């Protein structure tokens, strides 16, 4: 009996998924080696919450509202935003590609029987899944320590939209960092640019101050950019705000994922052949 085409595609897809799941599991296990890092990363998430608690504590003295935020609404935003930012650890991908291209060891990823980009996605998934529970515990602990009356979205549909958006946001960040890493093939040294990018992303992703406090024109421009949907909008949705932007947000970040994937394919096609494996 010959297998039907659909069944065959299904089997091949499952085999591929199994292969990448093995990579994910390997990276989950690898995190166990760095147990101390996990604990200290959890502890140091306090700095963002402490910053928000002290800064907004002094600002809210004698005030009920700042922008559309109450004091506890603002702290809830920072808790969720900090949790999501902590999970987004794809920055290491661009540095890894950058360093390996420069020292000529990027060939490691070219010879393994897996797609390079999917390999990094599977790797990121393994790390995120491992940290998920720990970061959640840290967030809950800070809520109790700082006695925050946590504000959470009431509608489950909004929560689902926020989770989907956050996942798409993480996929986009992996794609972006993979693409930036590949640019080393053309520009040789992009380390400085990567550090500036990290500084900039922390502002336009709403990690320092919520984007809702920016002037309306700036917010309109930000809505066109993907970073608005990586941590800011999911955090706002999970704290019960900006509900009307949920579906549009998923569509916009989805489009950005497709666009950057096309750019990656073009870049890979153009520059992979220039890699000579001897370093720069």
């Amino acid at each position, binding site marked *: 009996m010959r297998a039907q085409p659909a069944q065959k595609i299904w089997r091949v897809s499952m085999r591929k998924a199994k292969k990448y799941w093995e990579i994910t599991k390997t990276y989950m296990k690898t995190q166990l080696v760095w147990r*101390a890092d996990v604990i*200290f990363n959890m502890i*140091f998430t306090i*700095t963002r919450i*402490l*910053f928000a608690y*002290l*800064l907004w*504590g*002094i*600002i809210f003295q004698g*005030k009920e509202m*700042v*922008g559309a935020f109450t004091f506890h609404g603002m702290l809830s935003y920072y808790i969720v935003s900090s949790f999501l930012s902590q999970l987004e650890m794809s920055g290491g991908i661009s540095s890894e590609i950058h360093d390996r291209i420069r020292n000529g060891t990027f060939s490691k990823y070219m010879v393994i029987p897996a797609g390079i980009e999917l390999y990094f996605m599977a790797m990121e998934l393994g790390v995120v899944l491992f940290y998920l529970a720990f970061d959640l515990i840290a967030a809950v602990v800070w809520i109790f320590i700082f006695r925050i009356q946590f504000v959470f979205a009431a509608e489950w549909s909004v929560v689902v939209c926020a989770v989907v958006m956050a996942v798409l946001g993480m996929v986009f960040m992996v794609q972006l960092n993979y693409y930036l890493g590949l640019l080393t093939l053309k520009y*040789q*040294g992009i*380390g*400085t640019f990567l*550090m*500036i990018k990290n*500084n*900039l992303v*922390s*502002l336009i992703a709403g990690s*320092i*101050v919520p984007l809702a*406090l*920016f*002037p309306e024109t700036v917010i309109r421009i930000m809505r066109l950019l993907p970073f608005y949907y990586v941590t800011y909008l999911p955090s706002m949705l999970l704290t019960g705000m900006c509900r009307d932007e949920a579906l549009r947000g998923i569509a916009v970040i989805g489009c950005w994922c497709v666009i950057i994937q096309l750019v990656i394919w073009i870049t890979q096609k153009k520059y992979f052949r220039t890699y000579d494996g001897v370093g720069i």
Partner: protein
Amino acid sequence: MKQIKHNITKNWRVLRELFYLRFHGLAVFRLDFFAPFFVDGSLFLIQLLAFGVVYSNVETIGSWGRGEMILYIGTFSLLNAVNMTIYFFGVIRIPHKIRSGELDLYLSKPVSPLFRLTFENISPGSIPLILMSVCIIAYGASELESELTFARLAACLFWIALMEILYYEMEVMIRSISLYTVSMARMEQLEEAGIDLCMKLPGIAFYGVYKVIFYLLLPYGIMATLPVQSMIGEMTPQTAAYGIGVVSLFSAITCAMWKCGLKHYNSASS
């Protein structure tokens, strides 16, 4: 007196040679020359933008208005700029040199190891960062509602110099731990977290246990706060005495930790 003069002349000659060597190294890696300026410059400009947004929604943060906050960001940027230009890239290599045993080469030379470690990696590419910080401070001063006198400006410069010493001592002290332990990565993480928090948050926001932590145990909270307070006339004699006391205390601790640490150092073979 003659001995002091001899030491100064010798150290000056060493400093000049280290400067030439560093320039030679930087000329090889030209792409990275202005990297610290672009990276840290963008960091402080983003902070200015972020606080600009906060101040578009509120009048004051505590007793500080927009001008005071710009001054604070500019002062922290200046402290960081001087740090990056003169000693940062030298001091951060101390743990590596201890672990690899390279410190032997420094101990065997006829010049203070800490002097050479401090000045051997100066970064001229960070000098524009100093100019940028001065511009931010000038902008902050122009936004102030109170009058800026020469005495206040001189007081501010004095406190900036003193806080720069404290910044240096904190960096050396934290890295001196490598002389006693195998790894001090956590301490560097703690330092990074403390600086990251205090560069965004002025000392006036701290109270209770937070004030004890960031005014005494990890005194990053006073570094830019005291110079700004002296410039805007908010500094009391008690605060001034406290600031001088903290710098003296950390000078003593850093000196003791470094000297005792060198006695613990057993080279790479240990």
